[in-house]
């Protein structure tokens, strides 16, 4: 992962840094694999040294890292849609839900009964192997829904996409809840089989390491896909559409199919994350997929730096870890210490207020995010540094009628 190599760490010698940069530019996929392997080894080690062990055990940390990895996947997928193609998707949790339910149907007694198949009888003890094809099927199903939703709305201007996805994100959990005859309603689907991978040991609630390894691998694969896509012809088309849709169309880009592709690929990444999440939780219910998930992932993308994959990955990881470890610990700490006002505050409740403030603050002060993508940064700062400000103003007013 380039995250490691591109970070402005105090390099011992500029020569090495330069060489690493050149290498990572030429061999992106290798760099991602090596980087993820390094991260995968370093994180458990960090979690086993004193300041971190005081929060929770190493096992709990690794479990948290695996969960954070699911959000990293979501953030990478949403970044493809929002950051690269510039389409605001506010119902991203819906695709996460669709992927989750897809796995639940394929890999649980209840789901199998609805579908009229019996995976457990067919595969016996190796039933968890169904996880692997379901990763692809889940991604595919989510992509199909993305296309179904995007096809009518991507022809319209971008704002409509935002509101339609917002509605979609609201409706999908309602459908899963209300169509109780085939979804088991509010109770959701339980007893979902855990994955099975030869040589990785037992996947279980008390042993998060296999999940951790699988998550790392999936993040690496998705990152490689994402980087290769963005640096391809279609990736340039996405960026062109983001910067100026009219100009992109004038240059021969089919904006509708290109946007649809970004939307579908973003949805499929959420589908993969959903399959992984369900395989880890072994239970799925409609109330897991509220708007707060979509909003959290959006905050991760915006804070991490729209358009920059490793940036949003780091953003997602840090935000998830802060939420689930630091805020949790603050609650416990102030409760234990009986601090007058602070013990009444639920810091986990506060997180969404913080996200809201962070979104507004980031957009006003540093719209390119904490780890900016260079091109995106120039775009977001164009009108603020551009001396010909009236030029921008009049372009903007012409776009009112055309978008």
């Amino acid at each position: 992962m380039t995250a490691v190599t591109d970070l402005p760490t105090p390099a011992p010698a500029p020569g090495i840094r330069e060489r690493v940069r050149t290498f990572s530019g030429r061999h992106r996929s290798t760099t991602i694999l090596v980087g993820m392997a390094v991260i995968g080894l370093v994180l458990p080690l960090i979690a086993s040294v004193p300041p971190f062990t005081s929060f929770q055990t190493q096992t709990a940390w690794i479990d948290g890292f695996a969960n954070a990895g699911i959000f990293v996947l979501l953030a990478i997928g949403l970044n493809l849609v929002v950051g690269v193609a510039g389409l605001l998707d506010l119902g991203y949790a819906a695709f996460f839900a669709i992927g989750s339910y897809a796995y639940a149907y394929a890999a649980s007694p209840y789901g199998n009964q609805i579908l009229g198949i019996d995976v457990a009888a067919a595969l016996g003890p190796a039933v968890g192997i169904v996880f692997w094809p379901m990763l692809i099927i889940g991604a595919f199903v989510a992509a199909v829904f993305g296309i179904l939703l995007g096809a009518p709305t991507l022809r319209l201007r971008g704002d409509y996409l935002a509101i339609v996805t917002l509605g979609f994100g609201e409706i999908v959990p309602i459908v899963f809840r209300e169509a109780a005859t085939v979804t088991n309603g509010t109770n959701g689907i339980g007893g979902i089989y855990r994955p099975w991978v030869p040589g990785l040991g037992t996947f279980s609630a008390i042993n998060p390491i296999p999940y951790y390894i699988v998550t790392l691998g999936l993040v690496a694969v998705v990152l490689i896909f994402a980087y290769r896509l963005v640096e391809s012809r279609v990736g340039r088309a996405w960026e062109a559409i983001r910067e100026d849709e009219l100009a992109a169309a004038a240059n021969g880009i089919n904006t509708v199919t290109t946007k649809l592709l970004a939307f579908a690929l973003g949805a499929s990444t959420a589908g993969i994350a959903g399959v992984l999440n369900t395989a880890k939780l072994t239970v799925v219910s409609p109330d897991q997929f509220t708007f707060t998930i979509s909003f959290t992932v959006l905050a991760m993308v915006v804070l991490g730096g729209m358009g920059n994959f490793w940036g949003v990955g780091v953003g997602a990881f840090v935000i998830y870890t802060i939420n689930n470890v630091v805020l949790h610990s603050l609650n416990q700490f102030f409760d234990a210490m009986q601090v007058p006002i602070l013990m009444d505050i639920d810091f986990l409740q506060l997180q969404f207020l913080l996200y809201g403030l962070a979104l507004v603050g980031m957009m006003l002060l540093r719209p390119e995010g904490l780890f900016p993508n260079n091109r995106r940064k120039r775009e977001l700062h164009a009108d603020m540094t551009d001396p010909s400000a009236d030029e921008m103003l009049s372009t903007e007013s012409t776009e009112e009628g055309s978008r």
Partner: protein
Amino acid sequence: MTATTAPTEAPVSRSLSGPQSQVAGLAAVLGVLLVVAFLWMGPQQFVNALTLGAIYALIAIGYTMVYGIIELINFAHGDVFMVGTFVSLGFLTQLGFNAAINDPVLLTVVLAADFAFTMVVLGIAGMAIERVAYRPLRNAPRLAPLITAIGVSFILQNLVQGVPPYFGFGPFNANSPQIFPTDIAVEIGNASIPVLSLFIIVVALAMMIGLQLFVGRTRIGRAMRSTALDRDAASLMGVNINRTIAITFFIGSALAGAAGVTFGLQYGVTNSGLGFQAGLKAFTAAVLGGIGNTVGAALGGFIIGFIEVGAAVAGFNSWGPAIVFGTLVVVLVFRPSGLLGQQVGERA
């Protein structure tokens, strides 16, 4: 420059006969649908639909005005409405009005004060939101204000979860005092129609007519229309753009506040998550009517009210939001300009 680069959606020619006959046809169709709805639902549910529709219409007008003038979907608008329900609730409970008031004079005074207070507070809040979160981004890429809007929406929701407990209610669900007696009803045939519903419908219609007159007849209204049509040209003609946009936000948010008051009176409950769905439905109403068009938004609000109550009558109560959303997608696919056509800029 507008004409040269954006020929596709240049203002449609507004010949007098075309739109008028279209509107007449639309009115006829809606009239028939209203009669059908009345016969199917019965008077009781018909009035319920009108009341709910009036509330949606008041919210939808705010969406459509803001969209008309700065082309921004103000995601926070639904939450402004939700804050309105809480401000009204706070106003009444802090003054000690917790139950129905049977003295007509006192009731009128309290209601007027409640409406005035809530609308002014929300109007100022709306202006503040515009000043802080939208104005600095007016020339930024359009993704930026959309993201701040969603951020403001979350800030409002979480502030409401955090602040009201200090006044003794909330944080999530709160009972709003129904100071308007709910048991007074008019007997029509064998149905009894609550006076409260009629009051809400009349108040909402009065506000919509007032808004229409304000936008159409006053100097500020003219400034709003001209700003919506062409901001630069309006600015060159001496219109204070910032002030005009701020006033638009004031009016839109004040109407959402009024919707909040009526919601509290009608349903007697509120909830910090209320704004999300209400906002979605009101936005659907605005799109249905033709975004940017205040008359269309009002019309759309009533239609959404009928759709939702109709769904409940047909036994799909919990599917309401899904049906409304389905309506939104259908409208966007087949008639993205809405029922009353593309009139962005014609009305503020």
